């Protein structure tokens, strides 16, 4: 039992905008009233639901390969053990324990891994078992799955739907993720697609068809989260046309276009980027079926990790640094490259400005989420600084002094005066992502919500304020106080189990016999062993 008294509450889902309210908690949930228990005097403090990160790379084979690949990333940033907490290392790809603690210390209580290959699902769940405090889940990759590509080529749309439902359940995943649909399949023989109408050679389908079908499938299965798309041509000058074509191809279907910053470039391939945010944001503003998260770039050293194998190779060619590529049988791929974003670099400045333009040009904050595509644009620990950039235009101007001026001058950023309010910040960091994910008990403080609550001491320096919350409450328990972990808990894993026609399983079994090196029977992730604390989120 817990009472948080007299806080300035920002709870956008319930329309509460900075009013002084009491929040009562019992049995891990927000309740109308409670007698007794601990009280927290939150007078003069800001109370928000716990943060929700809807797109990060925090667990599974790709993340762990990046950890192995970057010992230099860990050495300078260690977290010693305490009597309560495990030790770990940070850097752009922190160890699992450090990942959970750092989210909690920043007031985030839910985080989703955005790209797990089905064959690596068991691995991702194992890492979740060692990721403390936060609730979590992952999106499973389907955009290059050969079973799906074959059925699309044969016009067997129903089978795609049944397979998708089977795969979500088998891997205990939360949503359908498409990464460079069609392109990663071709990358396995060193090819790629370049427009959404390029044929995926050998399969008789196209990225357009994959994206349209999977968007439909997500809706028909009633998944809580719409299809989550990493568009074709990420990171390539001129890719904004592909992004716009994708938006048009979705044609009213609900879809989330992720790390949109990386897909908003004008210019010619191989040349310098220009910003095309104005054109794309205008399309998003007028099409309520679409949502985006930003994938903000911040200056510094980080690690690019992606299911987009050909992109990984491109970044290796650009940076000349170390490069990992993993082709995953019949399913997907992966690329990893360390990258340093430099404030004096023309392209990096353009990317930084493009991300901020997205935040400032999308009118409806419910359809844009704050992400860095951790760790691709920057580590998630950069979120407080991004919040300051959005809330404080003087600070933004100060930062603009430090970047590549010619690049900056070609963007709209210097002309944008908008400042986010605390209410809007609460939307793009918790209420909005929770709603987009279809998590009805997250992202708000109404009666019945999970008691995941963050209490900030007010500070004009919004970076400082959001970096170190005064209290973080998870499931009604005070987990963080003044930057210290007070209790170690392990959150729940969310997954979906949509209904499907089980006749599909014979066909899947045959596919396994022919093309996999693992038995069909050994493939599904066992709930009791890998998700001891789970929650099935209802479909429909």
């Amino acid at each position, binding site marked *: 039992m817990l009472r948080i008294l007299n806080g300035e509450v920002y709870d956008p889902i319930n329309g509460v905008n900075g009013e002084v309210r009491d929040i009562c908690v019992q049995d891990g949930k927000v309740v109308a009233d409670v007698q007794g228990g601990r009280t927290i005097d939150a007078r003069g403090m800001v109370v928000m639901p716990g943060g929700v990160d809807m797109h990060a790379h925090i667990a599974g084979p790709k993340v762990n390969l990046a950890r192995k690949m970057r010992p230099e990333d860990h050495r300078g940033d260690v977290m010693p053990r305490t009597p309560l907490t495990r030790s770990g290392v940070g850097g752009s790809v922190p160890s699992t324990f450090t990942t959970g603690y750092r989210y909690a210390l920043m007031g985030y209580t839910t985080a989703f891994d955005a790209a797990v290959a089905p064959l690596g699902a068991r691995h991702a769940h194992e890492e979740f078992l060692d990721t403390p405090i936060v609730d979590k889940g992952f999106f499973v990759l389907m955009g290059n799955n*050969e079973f799906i590509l074959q059925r699309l080529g044969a016009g067997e749309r129903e089978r795609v739907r049944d397979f998708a439902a089977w795969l979500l359940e088998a891997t205990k995943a939360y949503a359908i993720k498409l990464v460079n649909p069609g392109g990663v399949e071709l990358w396995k023989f060193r090819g790629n697609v370049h427009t959404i109408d390029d044929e995926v050679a050998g399969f008789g389908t196209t990225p357009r068809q994959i994206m349209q079908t999977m968007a439909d499938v997500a809706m028909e299965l009633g998944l809580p989260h719409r299809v989550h798309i990493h568009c074709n041509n990420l990171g390539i000058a001129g890719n904004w046309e592909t992004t716009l074509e994708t938006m048009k191809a979705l044609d009213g279907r609900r879809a989330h276009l992720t790390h949109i910053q990386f897909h908003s470039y004008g210019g010619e391939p191989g040349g310098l980027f220009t910003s095309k945010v104005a054109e794309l944001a205008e399309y998003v503003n007028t099409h309520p079926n679409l949502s985006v998260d930003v994938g903000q770039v911040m200056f510094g050293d980080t690690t690019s990790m992606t299911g987009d194998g050909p992109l990984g190779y491109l970044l290796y060619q650009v940076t000349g640094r170390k490069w990992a590529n993993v082709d995953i049988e019949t399913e997907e791929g992966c690329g990893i490259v360390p990258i340093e974003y430099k404030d004096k670099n023309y392209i990096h400045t353009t990317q930084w400005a493009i991300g901020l333009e997205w935040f400032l040009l999308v009118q409806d904050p419910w359809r844009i989420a704050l992400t860095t595509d951790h760790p691709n644009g920057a580590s998630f620990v950069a979120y407080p600084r991004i919040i300051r950039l959005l809330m404080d235009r003087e600070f933004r101007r100060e930062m603009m002094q430090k970047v590549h001026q010619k690049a900056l001058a070609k963007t709209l950023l210097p002309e944008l005066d908008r400042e986010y309010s605390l209410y809007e910040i609460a939307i793009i960091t918790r209420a909005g992502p929770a709603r987009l994910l279809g998590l009805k008990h997250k992202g708000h403080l109404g009666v019945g919500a999970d008691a995941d609550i963050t209490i900030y001491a007010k500070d004009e320096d919004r970076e400082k304020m959001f970096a170190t919350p005064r209290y973080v409450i998870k499931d009604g328990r005070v987990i963080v106080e003044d930057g210290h972990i007070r209790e170690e808990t392990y959150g729940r894993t969310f997954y979906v189990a949509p209904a499907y026609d089980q006749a599909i399983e014979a066909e899947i079994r045959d596919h396994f016999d022919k093309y996999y090196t693992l038995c069909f029977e050994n493939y599904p992730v066992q709930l009791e062993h890998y998700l001891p604390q789970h929650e099935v989120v209802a479909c429909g």
Partner: protein
Amino acid sequence: MQIDHVVCAFCGCVCDDLSVTVEDGRITQIKNACVLGKAWLQGHANHTDRPVARIDGQPATLEQAVDTAARLLAQARYPMIYGLSSTTCEAQRQAVALAEVLGGCIDCCTSVCHGPSGMALQGLGEPTCTLGEVKNRADLVVYWGSNPADSHPRHMARYAVTPKGMFTPRGRKDRTVVLVDVRPTPSARAADVFLQIRPGKDFEVLWALRALVKGQPVEEASLADTGLTLAQLTDLAERMKRARFGVLFIGQGLTQSRGKHMNTSAAFLLVRDLNAITKFALIPMRGHGNVTGIDAVMAWQTGFPFGVNLSLGYPRFNPGEFTMVDVLSRGEADAALIVASDPVANLPRAVGKRLAEIPTVALDTHESETTRVARVAFTTATAGIHVEGTVYRMDNVPIRLRQVLPSPYPSDEEVLRRLLARVKELKAC
């Protein structure tokens, strides 16, 4: 009773298609297993006659042994935890937690097998793929310093040489197989091309191949000591460039011969270079059934795959400083916990000598040179026969082990959990 889809945890192939028949609590028939898998199943299946633990050679209860072992470890100033390549990830996770509470070192068999591959990965990254992509796509398969016919008997038939896949419909006929080794091993019979390299010349040959792949001149005289000719290497380089999807499997002949991480780095660089021309992958031929898993667990818990020290309360990595052979042969460790491994039999003599001098605690499924010198030795159930759990195949694919038989012995995980709990009590933390 026939149990299907049984997973073999013996070698890094982790074949998951075995069928095992159990009658009256004994294994009576094994299908699909190789000679090593059969021996593993038969050899480990039915021991029930040993005490669950021994203290100084005398039978003891589990509780007594846990208490004694925990005291020995908790008193130590610089304990070493080692082994872990033939147990489950669930046990490995407990072992890392224990190392942290003890403030000692934790290292695994990787440091004496594919540690140099891990170090090449740290320096260069790794272009790789899962074994199913080899099955579905590879038209050129090169084994270098590896003898799969003996060490991974089903590797060629199940994954790399004969299977038919999506883009390799004719199986063996669609592939060229090359073997590079210092002697014609039994694997040479399966190869289209066998290149007999002089011992210790791997780096030179790989470097010459890099030059040839890049179209740079190589002088015949520079190859004089390698045992190979310019014509042979030119032929191999051309085959590599022509391949649509090539794979280089590297074994301990490369990783543990003179040059070690320089050899592996040369191999990684060759494969990286080849990706400018075609698609090429590299896969280390990991030996033990879950040596890949301990690398994975240590990486996600500590950030580093082997050779980790936790004395300062946080993970530090330094092969040569915190690795088993080095710490023990320098006489630094003052206690040791060995899990599912036999370093006294397999590592340099100085290691065994030191393990006999200091309080050593050993967990193993059977008696070994190491359990004999251990002050406290636990008999544990065999992962994959008696206990379930997770293992990672050599290509990092995680697979759940099945239980075939019951066992009177506890799992490694259970013993490690109890040790951890007791050590925490003793250290009051």
